[in-house]
């Protein structure tokens, strides 16, 4: 009897439960979300910035309120640098009790786009609980809170945790709508713990803003992803762990000072060059070492190393396990905020392209090799007692040295070996006045399609033509000149006619991608341009040291954007009457992925002073910048200028 009534009772309850199950689940979820928001809301403050710039590059920086999160009871508040990018005259924080307080910027975490503020407070402020990163699960509920629409109530958007370990290990990702409405606010879990602080991050790391300020992340570009379903937050657990350090000093991404050998995406983390006077050099890392562990992370592929280094700051000590031959060594470099300026060293030769090993094609007059007595036709055997295997290997070895270093060279001339010493100099900026033509192989060139050839990229709608010179010989190595015309002037035949003779005499293939929008280049066209270059390298015999992106006016800005973004591919940028786009900033020197720049402008150009500023800044960073003056009146390039540019490209495989 007892049992029977129990059964009935539970059945009744069950069916009631199920009847309302969906509604109940919804309302339970809703109640849980509200409770989670309410738990953190007292720690979420509104920040108002007064005065300052209204524009960072082309991005209009809103002067609306932004959000911050209390991180210490005595008044430390963390926020996103985005809302304070305009260098405000003063900053006001509205505390949860409604009191407005003036705030001061205490410090910045430049690698994560965060700003630490301080307000004076007589009472202890509520500090939220941080959710441990270890326990976070992709797919769990996330709430993004802001306090921008009203100071008295938080605004929220709801989503799930999309990924952990994003932006080189610095951020978590959510599909909740993240925008200036909640940058600086917390990303909260269903229990009301803070997962992270919302910030517009972007995987493109840059070194300098347009106004020359040193930063590690792109100041505004992450914002292009606002409300897109891709939003980032810096884990609060991490912020707490570094808060004492951040209070004392600005934090930057830590720099090690190595370049990894280009061996495809899955390749090992083998060191190609070690920058002089860098933490890597001080710790004793050498070219050829393979990094197999960084801190506690096993490294089998080079991208894993980037992930392991990504979260680290200058001042952090890194424990590396490296394999050197049969040995395993433990080395502990201490990272730096920035490396000493690097200038690419130069031996002063052009190598023959068809030769075994390194045979000198041309010696730069007055350069280190000329001073050391080297002559065209000499074959280099050894550099500092290591065998010279080929031009690329020699170029990397020279990159690991320093200007002013002495390079001991063993070479062979007319069958006899000799030794000499060359004192390295910086890469030259002047265009050689005259170069001997590259050698042609003997015999008939294999048959190939020449003329204007349409390049089809399967998944892309955009048009692209390549011009292959009539005398194309697939056994030779060609330079690839990617020409980006100014807006609205795309006519492949015209451009071909301008370059035809030069392509034939200077071994150049011309590539003519068109913008997706016929009237102008959009930053997103960069991906299409890259695909057309990749395709050309597959189709034609391209010397990878001579891939150059060249543009006029709007196309020139696009050339900078493409060249800076695809460092693994582009070796030269030729920008005519165009400046570096304000929005993108300039990248670092990379000893392996060399990049040379040629600018051409006339004094009458509206951009003349900005271009000069770019030249100065690029040189300051260490890029070789060649300047072609176009006289007083603005004009496009003439035939003579094109010949100069072609010769500049011909010399890009210099060592």
């Amino acid at each position: 009897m007892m049992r029977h009534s129990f059964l009935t009772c539970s059945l009744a309850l069950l069916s009631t439960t199920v009847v309302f199950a969906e509604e109940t689940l919804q309302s339970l979820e809703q109640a849980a979300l509200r409770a989670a928001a309410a738990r953190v809301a007292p720690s979420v403050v509104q920040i108002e910035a007064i005065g300052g710039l209204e524009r960072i590059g082309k991005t209009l920086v809103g002067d609306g309120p932004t959000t911050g999160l209390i991180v210490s009871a005595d008044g430390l508040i963390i926020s996103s640098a985005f809302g304070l990018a305009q260098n405000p005259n003063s900053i006001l924080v509205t505390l949860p009790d409604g009191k407005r307080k003036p705030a001061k910027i205490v410090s910045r975490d430049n690698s994560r786009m965060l700003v630490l503020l301080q307000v004076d407070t007589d009472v202890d402020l509520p500090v939220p609980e941080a959710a441990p990163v270890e326990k976070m699960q992709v797919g769990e509920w996330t709430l993004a809170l802001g306090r921008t629409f009203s100071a008295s109530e938080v605004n929220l958007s709801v989503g799930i945790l999309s990924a952990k370990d994003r932006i080189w290990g610095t951020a978590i990702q959510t599909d909740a709508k993240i925008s200036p409405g909640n940058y600086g606010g917390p990303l909260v879990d269903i229990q009301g713990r803070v997962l992270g602080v919302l910030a517009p991050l972007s995987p493109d790391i840059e070194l300098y803003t347009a106004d020359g300020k040193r930063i590690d992340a792109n100041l505004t570009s992450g914002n292009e992803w606002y409300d897109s379903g891709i939003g980032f937050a810096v884990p609060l657990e991490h912020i707490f762990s570094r808060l004492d350090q951040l209070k004392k000093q600005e934090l930057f991404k830590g720099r090690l000072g190595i370049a990894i050998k280009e061996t495809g995406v899955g390749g090992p983390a083998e060191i190609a060059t070690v920058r002089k006077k860098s933490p890597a050099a001080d710790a004793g890392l050498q070219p050829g070492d393979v990094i197999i562990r960084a801190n506690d992370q096993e490294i089998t592929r080079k991208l894993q190393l980037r992930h392991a280094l990504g979260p680290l700051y200058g001042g952090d000590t890194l424990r590396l396990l490296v394999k050197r031959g049969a040995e395993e060594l433990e080395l502990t470099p201490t990272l730096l905020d920035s490396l000493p300026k690097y200038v690419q060293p130069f031996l002063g030769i052009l190598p023959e392209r068809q030769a075994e090993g390194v045979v000198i094609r041309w010696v730069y007059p007055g350069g280190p090799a000329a001073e050391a007595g080297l002559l065209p036709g000499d074959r280099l055997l050894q550099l500092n007692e290591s065998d010279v295997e080929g031009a690329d290997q020699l170029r990397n070895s020279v990159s690991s040295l320093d200007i002013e270093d002495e390079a001991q060279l063993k070479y062979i001339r007319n069958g006899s070996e000799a030794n000499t010493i060359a004192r390295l100099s910086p890469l030259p900026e002047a265009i050689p006045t005259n170069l001997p033509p590259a050698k042609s192989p003997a015999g008939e060139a294999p048959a190939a399609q020449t003329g204007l050839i349409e390049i089809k990229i399967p998944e892309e709608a955009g048009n692209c033509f390549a011009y292959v010179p009539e005398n194309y010989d697939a056994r030779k190595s060609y330079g690839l000149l990617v020409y980006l015309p100014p807006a609205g002037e795309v006519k492949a035949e015209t451009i071909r006619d301008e370059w035809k003779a030069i392509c034939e005499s200077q071994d150049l293939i011309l590539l003519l991608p068109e913008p997706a929008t016929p009237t102008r280049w959009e930053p997103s066209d960069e991906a299409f341009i890259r695909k057309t270059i990749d395709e050309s390298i597959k189709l034609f015999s391209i010397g990878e040291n001579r891939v150059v992106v060249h543009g006029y006016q709007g196309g020139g800005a696009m050339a900078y954007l493409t060249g800076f973004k695809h460092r693994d591919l582009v070796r030269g940028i030729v920008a005519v009457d165009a400046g570096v786009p304000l929005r993108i900033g300039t990248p670092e020197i990379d000893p392996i992925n060399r990049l040379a720049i040629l600018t051409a402008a006339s004094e009458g150009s509206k951009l003349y002073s900005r271009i000069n500023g770019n030249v100065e800044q690029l040189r300051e960073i260490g890029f070789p910048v060649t300047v072609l003056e176009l006289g007083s009146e603005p004009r496009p390039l003439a035939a003579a200028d094109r010949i100069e540019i072609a010769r500049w490209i011909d010399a890009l495989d210099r060592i």
Partner: protein
Amino acid sequence: MPLPRQSSTGPCVVLTLALVLFAVTELSAQTTLPSVISDVQPKMVKIYGAGGIRGLESYQSGFLISEEGHILTAWSYVLDTDYVTAVLDDGRKFKAETVGADPRSDIAVLKIDIQGAPHFSLPDASSVGQTGDRVLAFSNLYGIAAGNEPSSVLHGHISAKTDLKARKGVFETTYNGPVYVLDAMTNNAGAAGGALTDFQGNLLGMLGKELLNSQTNTWLNFALPITDLKPRVDDILAGRVRRDEAAQRPRPADHHSLQRLGIVLIPNVLVKTPPFVEKIDTGSPAASQGLQPDDLVLFVGPNMVQSRNEMIEELSYIDRLDAVKLTVLRDQELIEFELISQD
């Protein structure tokens, strides 16, 4: 929740399951999300009218609010033609007449010739959404639905309830009332006039037009609360025309100014020169209360002033007989002053 215990649950579990299944089938018509959505769809209307040039779409959304075919929609250029067509979710096509519009609240009421139309009843004041509520947005965004295709449904949450403050030109809109801000991409081309409901299908609001938030330079997704629209709709239906009451902030004929208070600000050198005090006239109200050069004025009354011009404008809204409350920043400290005009 009491569950039957293991030892004696053989037949009981089967029975329970059967009951569960029965209950779900029986009641799904009222409670599941798909059923809520299919109840709402017949109330939605696709509206076609003027536009089609220079990137202006010639369509928008609307929904039925009466048995006799009244449609609530957004007031826009799409209605600016004699031939407005309304298409129901079953594909029936009607010529729609404009009954009336309230351009200030950005709404219009249309009428089609129909009887017994499925419709939303305009709710009373209790139908209010709260921040965090889950919501559904029905509209023909991007004109994806055509003919007998139902509207597109998006789901999301109410992010915030706020006012579209027209005052500082934050939003370029004539509507400056309260809105629900949403965390879904609801306000795209053609979505204006769509319906916002809760997860039970109760009408909460009407989707607004595409709108750029000039404060954050981002696009805003929002809906106008139906409780605020209802009196306007009632007026349109009754043929009453409301005056534009309180459309403009009243500016008293005799109002305050910098000169009257004795404040000289630094000159206007930037687009937004911050209101820094350059000089205080001796014997002025500002001097007697202790304002000093280099003070930065942050608030006039409750309103923040970002620039010299905004401060001058704010003062012009205050009657000369009333006191002016200024909050200034001096050496990282906020100080309040109350100034009274002497003349």
